[in-house]
């Protein structure tokens, strides 16, 4: 079960603002993009966005839930599902046990139902801390089940994608999860359901080539990496350096594969508006 800390950012803020002594130097955040320093508390308060250059840092699934859905509304699906070892890959099981201990998640996606400003949704959040958000049996199964639940219950789906691609350690079984998830998306779509994909950093490989690209509406956070082939693979193929902006969200937007780029601070309200525009209004109680 994922440990939810709805007040995650509040807790961080409090920690930094209490017990300040005279020579106290607040912890600083060094932005990997603009290299400038700003107080870590400020960066956390902005939900991991650099106050100077708008760099959007990565969020864990729990942090994403905290900044996206109505407080206390998230109900998790399949919290205890863990991966098997379908091709008996050496050390795969052990590696996962360690990861489960060091993170608060059992695999690279968390799914469930939640409310966004009163609209009920099925939500999925990929977490790149877990084997680079790669898609294996658990990611495939949880996402397929989430879409099937949404289809059965007439609910929209909001999916935050973040993935390096296929889970190599599951071999061909990992590849087949692309078909499993895309099939479930297709049935949800044929049933008239709305699916909003939110691409976060990074959305690549088999996830880009399956459910991430199948949204009725595709949103991306600013400057995140979106692509099918990895940058280095392409550079090796064409034997030249690629421009800096290649495969950024803005590039994919320009090429017509992303509907809109939405900053983190506006995401919740944009999602809410889009849900309501499709008739998924606040439930009358």
């Amino acid at each position, binding site marked *: 079960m994922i440990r939810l800390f709805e007040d995650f950012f509040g807790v961080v803020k409090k920690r930094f603002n209490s017990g300040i002594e005279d020579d106290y130097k607040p912890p600083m955040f060094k932005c990997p993009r603009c290299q400038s320093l700003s107080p870590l508390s400020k960066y956390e308060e902005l939900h991991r966005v650099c106050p100077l250059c708008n760099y959007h840092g990565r969020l864990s699934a729990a942090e994403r839930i905290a900044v996206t859905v109505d407080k206390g509304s998230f109900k998790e699906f399949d919290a*205890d*599902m*863990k*991966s*098997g*070892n*379908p*091709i008996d890959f050496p050390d795969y099981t052990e590696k996962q046990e360690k990861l489960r201990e060091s993170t608060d998640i059992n695999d690279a996606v968390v799914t469930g139902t939640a409310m966004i400003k009163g609209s009920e949704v099925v939500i999925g959040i990929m977490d790149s801390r877990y084997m680079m958000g790669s898609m*294996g*049996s*658990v990611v*495939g*199964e949880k996402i*397929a089940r989430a879409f099937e639940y949404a289809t059965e219950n007439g609910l929209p789906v909001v999916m935050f994608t973040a993935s390096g691609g*296929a889970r*190599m*350690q*599951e*071999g*061909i*079984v*990992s*590849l*087949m*999860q*692309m*078909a*499993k998830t*895309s*099939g*479930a*998306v*297709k*049935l949800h*779509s*044929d049933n008239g359901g709305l699916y909003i994909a939110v691409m976060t950093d990074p959305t690549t*490989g*088999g996830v*880009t*080539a*399956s*459910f*991430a*690209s*199948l949204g009725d509406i595709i949103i991306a956070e600013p400057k995140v990496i*979106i*692509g*099918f*082939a*990895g940058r280095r*693979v*392409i550079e090796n*193929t*064409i034997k030249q350096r*690629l421009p800096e902006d*290649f*495969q950024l969200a803005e590039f994919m937007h320009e*090429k*017509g*594969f992303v509907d809109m780029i939405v900053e983190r601070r506006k995401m919740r309200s944009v999602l809410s508006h889009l849900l309501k525009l499709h008739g998924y209004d606040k439930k009358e109680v």
Partner: protein
Amino acid sequence: MEEKRSAWERLQLVHTKGRPTVRDYIPLVFSDFYEMHGDRLYGDDKAILGGIGRLDGRPVTIIGQVKGRDLNENKACNFAMPHPEGYRKALRLARQAEKFHRPIVCFIDTPGAFCGVAAEERGMGEAIAKNIAEFMTLRTPIISIVLGEGGSGGALALGVCDELAMLENAQYSVLSPRGFATILWKDASREQEASEIMRITAEDMVSLGVAEAIIEEPLGGAHNDLDKISENIKEYLSLKIPEKCQKDIDELLKERYTKFRKIGEFIE
């Protein structure tokens, strides 16, 4: 029967010069073949061919990845590595097959979708995703056969089907063993070790629920007897296509969804 080859030996075999390609098989398996061109959006990708022909008199749509038989052919077909427009051509022809109630036969033979700037600009991810999703609900039977290499998402884009067959020495994998060794061990030279560990053979595909059938190759491999291997492919299709066509289409679609739905291993 020959003694079973290792995954590595088979990998060498499918890269043997003279290994038959989809263009060798079509005239021996089908009659009245007419090739169609273009995705009606951007261009015509020579790495994927598509057309209409007859199998035992029945009109079918044929889609396949094209390997070259020499360097010139390979330059033209980009070593069977399609661009997005290739997959969009495949989807156009598949939808046409659905419209005219023709079953579809897909031949998979690719190292993978092409990794390049133009491919990314034209939405490789979207093109593959769209094919996978649309093939899942196409209201006509689909049979796919892996001829040599089934590499990654670029193969799966022609691999959502009612039944998948592997030629005896063909491989199907999430990534080439070389790429796999590079990513996981940062060492491309461990390619052979990767090929043995990844489970990429025809038998592996059957035991993992990815493939339903294995088509036997002539002694020494498909290149040793083109007539014989074509006959084996035709025999398989002549059995399977009528069988799938007789099925209630809604039942067939349910089974197609379930085939992929149940692949995976997890603990609850």
